[in-house]
């Protein structure tokens, strides 16, 4: 039986305190947050096993810094959802706004709708699955982790990429600097098969193309010295 926290009666700070205390107890408590009305920073900083379902849409920075907790938004999420996520699972039933999963270090961010620009910017180990499309400049400077997109990608995918792996099933409007298509090896198909099941995504690993860093920006090219 879920504990119900109603935002039409409780302040944001009281709700976040309750959730954070439950996370500290690591008792797998189950919560529902009603009437979120697009509030900012809801269910952020949860650092233990707790399950939170938000019954509506959220504003900026929902579920930021998540660690071990499971957070589901039954609506759309504003900018910066699951920013700097460490582990656990964040699920968005609707769309996610810009820079979803930015700088995330681990865990699974599962976006059932579309994600807009800069999805997974500077990602550092997080797995992001987007069932719809993603916007421009996604995975910019991505260092580690996986971005899996069932739909299409916007302009400049993977610009200045380090070692994050990008898998796109649909079209890519354009690749960013130093991002190239790469061969799909058995370990990539295996990884996709696993994460698509985890994310409840209706797609086959063979349908995806892989993109990654050409690694030409890693070291300074002496031939460019004249430009400086």
């Amino acid at each position: 039986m879920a504990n119900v926290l109603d935002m039409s009666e409780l302040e944001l700070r009281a709700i976040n305190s309750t959730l954070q205390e439950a996370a500290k107890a690591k008792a797998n408590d189950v919560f529902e947050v009603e009437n979120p009305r697009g509030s900012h920073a809801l269910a952020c900083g949860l650092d233990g096993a707790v399950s939170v379902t938000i019954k509506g849409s959220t504003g900026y920075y929902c579920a930021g810094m998540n660690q071990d907790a499971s957070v589901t938004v039954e609506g759309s999420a504003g900018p910066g959802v699951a920013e700097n996520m460490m582990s656990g699972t964040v699920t968005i039933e609707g769309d996610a706004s810009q820079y979803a999963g930015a700088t995330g270090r681990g865990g699974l961010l599962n976006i059932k709708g579309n994600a807009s620009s800069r999805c997974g910017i500077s990602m550092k180990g997080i797995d992001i699955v987007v069932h719809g499309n993603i916007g421009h400049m996604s995975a910019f400077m991505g260092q580690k982790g996986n971005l899996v997109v069932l739909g299409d990608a916007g302009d400049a995918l993977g610009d200045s990429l380090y070692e994050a792996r990008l898998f796109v099933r649909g079209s890519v409007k354009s690749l960013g600097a130093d991002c190239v298509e790469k061969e799909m090896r058995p370990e990539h198909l295996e990884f996709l098969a696993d994460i698509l099941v985890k994310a409840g995504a209706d797609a086959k690993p063979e349908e995806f193309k892989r993109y990654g860093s050409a690694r030409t920006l890693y070291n300074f090219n002496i031939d460019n010295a004249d430009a400086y």
Partner: protein
Amino acid sequence: MCGIVGLFLKKDELRPRLGDLLTDMLITMTDRGPDSAGIAIYGDTVDGLTKVTIQSDTPEVDFDGLDAALSSVLEAPVSMKTISTHAVLTIPKGKEETAIAALEEKGLRIMGSGQSMEIFKEVGLPKDVAERFALRNMGGSHGIGHTRMATESAVTTLGAHPFSTADDQCLVHNGSLSNHNQMRRTLAKKGVMTRTENDTEVGAAYISSRIADGASLGEALEGTLEDLDGFFTFVTGTKDGFGVVRDPIACKPAVMAETEDYVAFASEYRAFADLPGIEAAKVWEPEPATVYFWER
């Protein structure tokens, strides 16, 4: 940072509630822009008549007998509705230019003019601005509002949004333009003048100028992507509807909602929370460098 809201009604039943719904949206956006607030509201039109909205810091002096004085200048009947620091003067269509010149001569600030549009804007918290003008009681077909956190020019009534640079046209903006001085000079060479040093007013004047040259609202908004440099989410109002465009980088937030009854725009979803039927609305984020508009 600034807050933008807009509401376009598809059905007449909600018209009496337009001001009430927009006021809630505007107040929700207070923490995005507590400096000043404004609203452009598109209400009923009367054939042959047009309206000029003006502002004065000393309304009790400046508005006293103003209708009669303007009537004798125009040699035509003038009616006046005063609301706090603003007054809406209704005059015969075709007399706008003479009227605006006469009003500016008296040191009055022109907020805008048009058959349908009235603009109310002031320095202060959105809730105080809304109360001052009794925005909740205003009806209409569509309206746009703005809460301002100034980054670019002074916090004054004239620096508040919406900006109007042609009859029944207005613009609100979240962002900052970097080529506005150059564009201001380019427009001035064509005879298009602005009233302030504000960047947004240049954006408004650019759109008005393109429409005056024969462009549609959609084409004028497309033109902003080519000719204006900087960050912007624009919402522009016309007599028949409103349009939305974001720059290609699109770092200024925007969200839209549509039901059978209305199309709504806001900087954040929060502003939609009290709209009727929002739970079942189609909610989406407008794409970068893409023009959206709704017209009746």
